[in-house]
């Protein structure tokens, strides 16, 4: 049921990120004043866990391995915050169940009935759908697919999942990072089960990732040109080059140069760039939020 709005579904644009309506008059207006209250470890009061599942489509399972790469933290997440109710590789459940959060890994092959069907079921049965990893969000290497290979030469059309269903949140990169999915899982838990303060924090944190899902499902190193340098926003920090998982970016005289013959279209460089988005309301509280997440994982 795409488009429905469960009470707990995050709003597309929570207040914390509303653009300032009038230009700042004094410098202090520049910084969003609203302080996000940070949850303390002792306050982790919430009794019941959320349910999380992973739907594997045309991906490589690297995204799922990433989740498992929280090592000891995986047990902590599953002990205290989330029940893993679906993930063919890790648990025995065969068919898509109801769940709070569905992580979808891989793009969707339009020529494979099962993929399309399972993806729609995942949407209908989950409160929050996450495009987990570059394949689901942007197509990644499956953007290059063009069929013609035995034993299913007809498998040719691969699309990011948001071509087929509504997606609430993007978590790009190939693969995403264990710490990123950990943070999102903890925040999803606070969003769905927390008190008002915790909900506010989680909403503020998750907002940019939700906005990323609204931005579109095409990504490439070229985004650094189109949406950062061409827009007059690049300041040469080098984050994009440090981020790229295939070393496609070098810094030349302080600006990124993308080797497009290496880029796999994972979207990591752009979303990691501090000039793709930067939410002061969350970042100014980085210390508290990091401590809170650390506390939650202990």
């Amino acid at each position: 049921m795409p488009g429905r709005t469960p009470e707990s579904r995050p709003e597309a644009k929570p207040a914390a990120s509303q653009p300032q309506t009038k230009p700042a008059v004094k410098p202090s207006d520049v910084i969003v004043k609203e302080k996000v209250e940070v949850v303390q470890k002792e306050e982790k009061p919430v009794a019941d866990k959320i349910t999380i599942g992973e739907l594997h489509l045309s991906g490589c399972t690297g995204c799922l391995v990433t989740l498992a790469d929280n090592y000891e933290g995986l047990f902590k997440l599953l002990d205290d915050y989330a029940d893993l109710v679906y993930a063919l590789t890790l648990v025995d459940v065969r068919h898509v169940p109801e769940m709070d959060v569905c992580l979808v890994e891989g793009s969707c092959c339009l020529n494979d009935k099962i993929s399309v069907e399972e993806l729609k079921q995942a949407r209908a049965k989950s409160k929050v759908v996450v495009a987990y990893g570059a394949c689901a969000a942007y197509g990644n290497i499956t953007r290059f697919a063009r069929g013609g290979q035995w034993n299913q030469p007809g498998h040719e059309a691969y699309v990011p999942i948001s071509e087929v269903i509504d997606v609430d949140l993007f978590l790009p990169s190939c693969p995403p990072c264990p710490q990123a999915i950990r943070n999102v899982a903890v925040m999803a838990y606070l969003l769905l089960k927390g008190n008002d303060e915790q909900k506010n924090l989680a909403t503020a944190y998750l907002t940019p990732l939700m906005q990323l899902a609204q931005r579109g499902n095409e990504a490439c190193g070229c985004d650094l040109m189109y949406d950062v340098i061409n827009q007059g926003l690049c300041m040469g920090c080098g984050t994009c080059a440090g981020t790229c998982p295939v070393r496609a970016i070098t810094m030349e005289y302080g600006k990124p140069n993308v080797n497009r013959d290496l880029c796999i279209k994972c979207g990591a460089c752009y979303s990691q760039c501090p000039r793709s988005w930067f939410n002061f309301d969350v970042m100014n509280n980085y210390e508290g939020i990091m401590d809170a997440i650390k506390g939650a994982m202990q």
Partner: protein
Amino acid sequence: MDVLGNYKSAISARSTDKDILKKSQDGGIITTLFAYALEEGIIDGAIVAGPSDEPWKPEPMVATTKDELLAAAGTRYTISPNLYLIKEATRSYGLDRVGIVGTPCQMQAVRKAQLYPIGMRDVDDKIALALGIYCMENLSYQALEAMVEDHCNQKMESVKKMDIGKGKFTVYTERGAVSQMPLKLIHKYVQPGCNVCLDYVANLADISSGSVGSPDGWSTVFVRSTKGNAVWDGAIAAGCFETKPMDQVKPGLDLVTKLATEKITKNQKNVDARKTMGLKADGTPKGLRNPYETP
């Protein structure tokens, strides 16, 4: 929170290490703190702006000794993409505790990489010390070249030190010459990305420092985070710095606040102007992308 960001204390300080003071830009705060942190095992190495093949063009490098830190001391008024190495430092370099120095925007990048580690696996808890340097604006290498060679009439390779202060850009050559150009001419050369920058004193660093507010050869230091506080206290206890209370130095914190306010106000205007820069068919304004609102 105001334009100076959260901080636990503001101090005027100068390194007690003569070797460092000879090479450093101002009070040698950054180099001294890293040297102390290396010694104490707080960091295994620090990402700094190292030398490259071209004069005054910095190349990010991982320094693991005091000698390497010294080779990278002093300010290069052009981009050093230090974040380029932040992941690699934890990989082939094998660092578990990474130090990094950078401009305010680079400190923002560090915090984003920690809070939203999208393509930055296993980096977040390895950032052991992030040191910020104040920054009004930065220049492309070619812009710096034009300023030094055209406006100041000096060869890049003959320059010993560059400095910005008291309304002037100054170059000192190896042979003792001093040339200057007024800062108001600099505007054309500033890299465009700096025009939307809303941070002057590296609000998100653990400790940030710059010359403004303190006397020549001294630095103004903001100790910001819990981590920064612990490192600063340790360094003071170890006798790394001479210090003076901020309210007893001239020109003092007021000047820092004034400059920060000017920068942020000006750049906030730029950010706002972008919202209405273009024109739609119906006559209403068409805006450019605003990174502070949406991706």
